[in-house]
């Protein structure tokens, strides 16, 4: 028993320290969670591998600009693909920066630099279904002013950013019946089925053609230039000069709008794996790829993700047990301090899981370490609470008899109180374990791995199959764990209580 505990502790420590400083000879490639970002990151990763100066660690699909940017600045990743418009408006918050050199100069004090433009500009645009636009006679964004009955669904970034909907609406004087926030991948379905009329898209979006969407002309030139660049930590360019030179040589000015849209379509429409699309670009032809479709690769991946996911759950619940049971005991021993302690844990629980994961990034970076910390905190409440409740429910007479028998504090706790509360404590651990299987899918949003990796990717690639490939095994794991704990009950709960 104690050896098992030691193993769990060691694993927890290893996971936490792995998230700290980058070891020598490793370049951590990050990306945001949409197809184009995945592809560009994968191209960069393959170039780095070809040069051979450093090993590559892929930490892709981190989420939006905020998370990815923080990961870069904290050193959890070394580079990721970014867009000039996002850099000036969101990161540097200075729209007057117009040239690459001006932006680069402002990145310097942050320890960052960037490549020249990769060739294409992925600007924001508004899109409608072509047939609907035709019927209403909408060709430009200005034309929307005549149709206040339209319903729009925007990604949350676009809806809130000054260079998104608020600015656009002000400039064009627009009013719409509805503007909702929706995950991008879901909006494609909504617009295809006609539930939504208008959405924000990127101009190199691979879905535009398939869904027969029309880009509305930005007749008053509101949207700024979003040239793609590689954003890197300066120390990378100094430590791996050959790699950096090769990245610039291979990528700068080599991808025009059309080529990028083709690569995006290769993944989004043809179901190719991101690695195939990247390889296709590097071998010269954007459409000459021969790799197997992504769906076959997924099956092999699930085994590795299962191990990953199980480890996330086991370590975080293990840590929560080691922490939660003593906390429950303390709460039962010292009533007033105990109430405070339990309230604090309960408060942690009210923080949405995704937000809790995000809070971990500035403290622990990205990856498994911070995910484990967040998941452990999340699993703490049911365990501490049930331990407390179990101890408080014990018949007072039985405790007095323990005193008369002069068992002593420790013996009373181990021999009498904990066994008598075993059913309640086990129920708490069971709840923690089963819910953690679900919560752990969110770990992928901060690069923690597990089944969530497939869910995040599926959302980004708008691929229900991939989402299910992550969600279904997670549900199965929750069920299995539930069964395992039922068996464990028979082993742990004393016979006399069953």
């Amino acid at each position, binding site marked *: 028993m104690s050896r098992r505990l030691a193993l769990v502790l060691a694993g927890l420590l290893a996971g936490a320290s792995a998230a700290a400083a980058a070891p020598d000879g490793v370049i951590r490639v990050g990306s945001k969670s949409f197809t184009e970002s995945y592809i560009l990151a994968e191209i960069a990763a393959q170039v780095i591998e070809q040069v051979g100066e450093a090993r590559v660690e892929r930490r892709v699909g981190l989420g939006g600009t905020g998370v990815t940017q923080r990961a870069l600045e904290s050193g959890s990743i070394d580079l990721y693909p970014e867009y000039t418009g996002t850099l000036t408006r969101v990161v540097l918050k200075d729209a007057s920066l117009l040239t690459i050199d001006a932006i680069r100069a402002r990145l310097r004090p942050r320890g960052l630099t960037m490549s020249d433009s990769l060739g294409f500009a992925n600007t924001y645009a508004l899109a409608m279904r072509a047939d609907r636009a035709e019927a209403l006679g909408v060709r430009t964004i200005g034309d929307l002013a005549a149709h206040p009955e339209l319903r729009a669904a925007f990604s949350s970034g676009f809806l809130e950013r000054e260079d998104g909907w608020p600015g656009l609406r002000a400039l064009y004087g627009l009013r719409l019946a509805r503007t909702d926030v929706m995950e991008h991948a879901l909006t494609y379905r909504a617009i295809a089925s006609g539930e939504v009329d208008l959405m924000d898209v990127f101009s190199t979006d691979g879905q535009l053609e398939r869904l027969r969407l029309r880009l509305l002309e930005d007749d008053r030139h509101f949207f700024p230039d979003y040239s793609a660049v590689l954003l890197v930590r300066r120390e990378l360019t100094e430590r791996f000069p050959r790699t950096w030179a090769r990245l610039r040589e291979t990528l700068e000015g080599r991808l025009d709008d059309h080529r990028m849209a083709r690569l995006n379509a290769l993944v989004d429409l043809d179901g190719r794996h991101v690695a195939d699309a990247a390889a296709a670009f590097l071998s010269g032809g954007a459409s000459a790829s021969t790799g197997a479709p992504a769906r076959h690769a997924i099956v092999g991946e699930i085994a590795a993700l299962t191990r990953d996911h199980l480890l996330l759950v086991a370590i975080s619940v293990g840590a929560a047990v080691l922490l939660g049971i003593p906390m429950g005991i303390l709460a039962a021993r010292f009533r007033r301090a105990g109430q405070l302690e339990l309230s604090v844990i309960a408060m942690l629980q009210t923080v949405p899981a995704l937000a809790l994961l995000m809070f971990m990034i500035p403290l622990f970076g990205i990856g498994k370490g911070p995910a484990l910390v967040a998941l452990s905190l999340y699993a703490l409440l049911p365990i501490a609470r049930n331990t407390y409740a179990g101890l408080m429910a014990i018949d007072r007479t039985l405790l007095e008899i323990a005193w008369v028998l*002069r*068992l002593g504090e420790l013996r009373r706790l181990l021999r009498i109180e904990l*066994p008598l509360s075993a059913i309640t404590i086990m129920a708490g651990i069971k709840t923690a374990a089963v819910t953690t299987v679900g919560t752990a899918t969110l770990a992928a949003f901060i690069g923690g791995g597990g089944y969530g990796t497939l869910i995040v990717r599926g959302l980004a690639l708008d691929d229900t199959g991939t989402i299910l490939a992550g969600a279904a095994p997670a549900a199965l794991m929750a069920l299995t764990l539930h069964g395992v704990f039922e068996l464990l009950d028979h082993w742990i709960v004393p016979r006399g209580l069953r």
Partner: protein
Amino acid sequence: MIALREVTKRFGATAALDAVSLEVPAATTHVLLGSSGSGKSTVLRLILGLTLPDRGTVSVDGTPVDVGTRDRLVARMGYVVQDGGLYPHLTASDNVALAAEAQAWPRDRIATRLTELAGLTGLDAAMLRRYPRQLSGGQRQRVGLMRALMLDPPILLLDEPLGALDPIVRVELQEQLGRLVADLKKTVVMVTHDVREAARLGHTITLLTAGRVVQQGTYADLAERPASPFVTQFLTAQTVPAPPTAAGA
């Protein structure tokens, strides 16, 4: 010897005990008799040191029971409650052995003592492997008694020890208990509301009502020289009345 002098114990506004005095000489059995809520269980808790008096003193063999002494004094006492008060997650033998384990007795000494106690209390030794819920009420009570006797304390405090038993088993156990404490020369304080049990087991009796002593003495004293009409009322309430005569109509 156990002695209470002018002991008052309040719980909130109500007095559980009001100026109660009593003495229990060594190797005698004293019965606290009264209906529920009369304060008789509180006397046991005061002797054990589980609760401390608001006024007056409780002493065991001349030492007052207080915060400083109770941990030491409790070593001289065995405590039995209604239905045994056994730990449901432990087998009967584990329940009985707890106190000896805490005193780091070697295994074989514990085993020898278990056999000895089973003989003493008349428990079938095979029952020792069972969990409490697999035992009958009488067996549970015997196990509870064995547990209290494990370290052979000179004092036994019994709180309604036979309260949960059916009448036949109850009478059988009363006789056994009387013989046992006499043989072992234990000083016993026993709480009951059963008048016949008090008469059968108590060398002396204290009749309590609402926290006050109504009368102290032998059963004969109470029956023949009642201090008040209440005493007679209490003693006769539990005796079986003569059956109604058919000629009553």
